[in-house]
């Protein structure tokens, strides 16, 4: 569904992403892992259009989106969350989610101005859908709170709900489980599995290996901006270069124990 070829991003004096090729299968859960500073978030920024690539190209369903603006990609079905949470803090929780539906609300400015039926229908449906999503991420009780006042973990879940609100076909999640305890992480995994069942392709950056191994169909490993390995969770887990650069022997062993050799 999404293909990056020879994607490169150079910052002054630093190749953050270096000729990376990734192909994300439609309907799959694809993980990106790698040490801190490997270029994962940068890759996400390139995919969502927040940064222009230095070279290389991106296609979504065969359509070249290398130069498309962020909002155009959103329209094409790309949504994301942020590693450093970025809420519209002054808005209420439900308003945040409804903002995520921007591209899905079809009524015109004129309809809004004159409160035409199209507007009312749209808004009513949007609100229902937003409430549903909040229930889905367990924040229904806080729908009317100011979102900046939520705790860290709550804000993370709100971000996921906001990203889902646009009915994306490709959802990029940047460390969704950061700041969650194992139980919360497990619930999140359940939630993401449900998301995955809705025909949404997931591209996931995460350092919680149990979580990644559980969820992902395929994993790409980056190090110093380069792709160093790719494959099924098991292949990646056993790859010596990955163990050396990223996992460490202890984690690798633990993973092997937990998920069978």
């Amino acid at each position: 569904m999404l293909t990056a070829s020879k994607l490169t991003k150079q910052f002054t004096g630093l190749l953050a992403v270096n000729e990376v090729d990734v192909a994300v299968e439609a309907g799959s859960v694809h993980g990106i892992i790698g040490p801190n500073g490997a270029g994962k978030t940068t890759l996400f920024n390139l995919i969502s259009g927040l940064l222009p690539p230095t070279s290389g190209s991106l296609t979504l369903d065969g359509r070249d989106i290398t130069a498309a603006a962020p909002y155009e990609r959103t329209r094409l079905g790309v949504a994301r969350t942020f590693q450093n949470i970025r809420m519209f803090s002054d808005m209420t929780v439900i308003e945040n989610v409804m903002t995520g539906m921007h591209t899905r609300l079809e009524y015109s400015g004129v309809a809004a101005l004159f409160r035409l039926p199209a507007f009312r229908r749209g808004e009513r449906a949007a609100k229902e859908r937003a409430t549903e999503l909040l229930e889905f991420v367990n924040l229904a009780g806080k729908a009317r709170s100011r979102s900046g006042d939520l705790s860290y973990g709550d804000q993370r879940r709100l971000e996921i709900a906001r990203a889902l609100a646009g009915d994306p076909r490709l959802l990029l999640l940047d460390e969704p489980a950061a700041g969650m305890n194992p139980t919360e992480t497990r619930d999140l995994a359940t939630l993401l599995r449900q998301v995955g069942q809705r025909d949404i392709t997931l591209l996931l950056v995460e350092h919680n290996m149990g979580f990644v191994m559980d969820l992902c169909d395929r994993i790409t490993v980056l190090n110093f901006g380069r792709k160093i390995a790719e494959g099924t969770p098991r292949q990646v887990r056993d790859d010596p270069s990955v163990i050396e650069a990223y996992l460490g022997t202890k984690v690798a062993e633990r993973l092997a124990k937990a998920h069978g050799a």
Partner: protein
Amino acid sequence: MLSQQLVNGLVLGSTYALFALGFTLIFGVLRVINLTYGFYFSIGAFVALTAARSFGANIWVALPLGAIAAGLVAVVADWILLTRLRRAKAGELSSLMVTLGAVLALYSLMAVFIGTDIQRFPFGFVDNSAIEFSGIRISLVQMLIIGTTLVLVALLFVLLQRTKLGLMIRALAENEDAARLMGINVGLTVAAVSFLSGMLGGAAGVLIGLNFNAIQPFMGEHMMLRGFAVIIIGGLGDIRGALIAGVLLGVLEVLTAGYISSNAKEAVAFTILVLTLWFRPVGLFGRAQAKRA
């Protein structure tokens, strides 16, 4: 004539830079569009003027006196106007508004008590003579302005980039809570910055008032527009930028008035500003915010 015009431009540019130093400090470092800055400029000039008149102070007494007085005013003004807003994390715009109200009150108060007539330092307050070499004339006051500007730029640059205080000031500008966690006394450091920029403003007021012989409560207000242009062209908070932008503007204005048309002089500052921002949206030396997606 060209060389004389270049000297004229250099002098004018130095006054712009001198005015802009404290402005860029308070604006760029404390992240506040502090409109009271123009008032520090005026009050510095007036304190020096009063000193010169009432006990015949000479420039070497009147200048520091004016500067220190303006510095103190700045500390008090900042404390009254901005601590509360800072604590409430109220943001740039409410600071702008509060200083807007304050500056209206302050200028008007000053005008009520001092009147709005222009005044000047007593004749003979400084040696008014000019030196002349190969047809170029420059007065001693003008040389003093150029000299002071250069010295202050150097001092400030070192202070901000090379000293502990400078480091603390910059830290605080960025993230107050984190600065506190580093053991930085935020209130004191803010006061130090205010004092510094007030002093710079006051000193500029004395020297520029002396050069143009036009001291008036609203003199600071007239400088503000150019001041904005200079600190934006130079890049907010950047001392070198203020110097270069100030001199650049001064020289170009003079050349425009001298060789193109004096009608166009007024438009120079903002034309340069637009051109600069076209190529560098954060000014010559400004840095884009290090914010990552």
